[in-house]
């Protein structure tokens, strides 16, 4: 149930997705249990909304991938509890958005569909990971470049892809996340959007994304499998990825589908360490 939230929508008026985000925000506030932040007024008058945004959990509703609402939240240093993007929600609901700016039946149905899902979300039973491991402790090889320190875990069972993702394999499961190369490049990570529990992810498919004020990075999954757990703590504290992207900063746990085949396109820590060094040097050329 979405209750006692501050809602920050995109509210762009020149795109259908923007109009839908505004409409959804109003729908969520109709009950009187949530409060709306007007993005336009917020730009010119911070004091009107700052207190509300800091005491209530914040739901950010972006219309499209330009993510104006997310950017505004980042600009104002707001902590985001939850966010969604209307264009992605439309795809998930099998709705093709057009250029109309007045809501038709299908857009109204989308608003109601998302509203219902948001309210049902709190009631969902979270699937518990099988043979869950509580914490990971790795040994590291390090590479120092200027003031930046890059760690690469060297434990057996750790694999990497060339897209700067890691997977720690144990039994038929894997924990996955990003490497130090990613977190150092993004600098302060502000958001973590996890994959959905139950999602079937192909090797090199998307397993969540992270965002800083500089950029967005999607975790390109080193392995294929079904998502059985996500790092809930990371949703609340995405900065944990900056602290250590390997141990407490893991992003998702997968039940493996075909690791023997996946392994063909993975590398070990020595090879990844060399690759990462080249990437660091290239970036600083």
């Amino acid at each position, binding site marked *: 149930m979405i209750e006692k939230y501050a809602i920050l929508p995109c509210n762009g008026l020149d795109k259908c997705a923007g109009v839908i985000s505004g409409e959804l925000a109003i729908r969520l506030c109709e009950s009187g249990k949530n409060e709306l932040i007007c993005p336009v007024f917020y730009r010119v008058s911070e004091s009107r909304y700052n207190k509300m945004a800091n005491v209530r959990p914040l739901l950010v509703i972006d219309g499209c*991938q330009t*993510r104006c609402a997310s950017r505004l939240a980042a600009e104002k240093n707001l902590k985001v509890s939850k966010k969604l993007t209307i*264009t992605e929600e439309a795809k998930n609901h099998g709705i093709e958005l057009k250029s109309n700016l007045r809501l038709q039946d299908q857009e109204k149905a989308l608003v109601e569909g998302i509203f219902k899902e948001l309210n049902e979300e709190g009631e969902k039973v979270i699937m518990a990971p099988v043979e869950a491991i509580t914490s990971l402790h790795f040994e590291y090889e390090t590479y120092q470049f200027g003031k930046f320190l890059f760690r690469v875990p060297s434990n057996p069972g750790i694999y990497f892809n060339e897209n700067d993702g890691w997977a720690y394999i144990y039994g038929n499961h894997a924990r996955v996340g990003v490497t130090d190369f990613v977190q150092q490049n993004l600098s302060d990570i502000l958001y973590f959007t996890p994959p959905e529990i139950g999602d079937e992810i192909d090797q*090199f*498919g998307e397993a969540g*994304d992270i965002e800083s004020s500089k950029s967005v990075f999607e975790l*390109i999954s080193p392995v294929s499998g079904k998502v059985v757990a996500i790092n809930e703590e990371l949703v609340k504290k995405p900065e944990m990825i900056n602290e250590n992207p390997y141990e407490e900063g893991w992003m998702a746990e997968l039940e493996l589908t075909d690791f023997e085949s996946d392994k063909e*396109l993975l590398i070990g820590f020595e090879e990844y360490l060399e*690759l990462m060094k080249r*990437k660091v040097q290239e970036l600083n050329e």
Partner: protein
Amino acid sequence: MSETTFMGVPRNKIDWKPAIDYSKCDYCMECVKFCPHRVFEVRETEEIRLIVRNPHNCVVFCRACSKICGPDALSFPDKNATTLRIKEIRKEMEGHD
């Protein structure tokens, strides 16, 4: 410069690059600002003001630019087909060793 191989396969043998749908692109140039690999090029004086200039700089399996594209004008090849093709090329290369 970007890596010249991906998993040992020469980058120019892997078909992975963004395709621009010019019927959707509004030339906001967010993708140009976003991509650190200089895949795109702006051509201010041309009718088509944005092109994919360096397709082989594009990081294989990265689709991040399409995620920040407001008008949803960028698309990528099929990931599974690309994965299979990389595996095939690796096998072909092993055969020549």
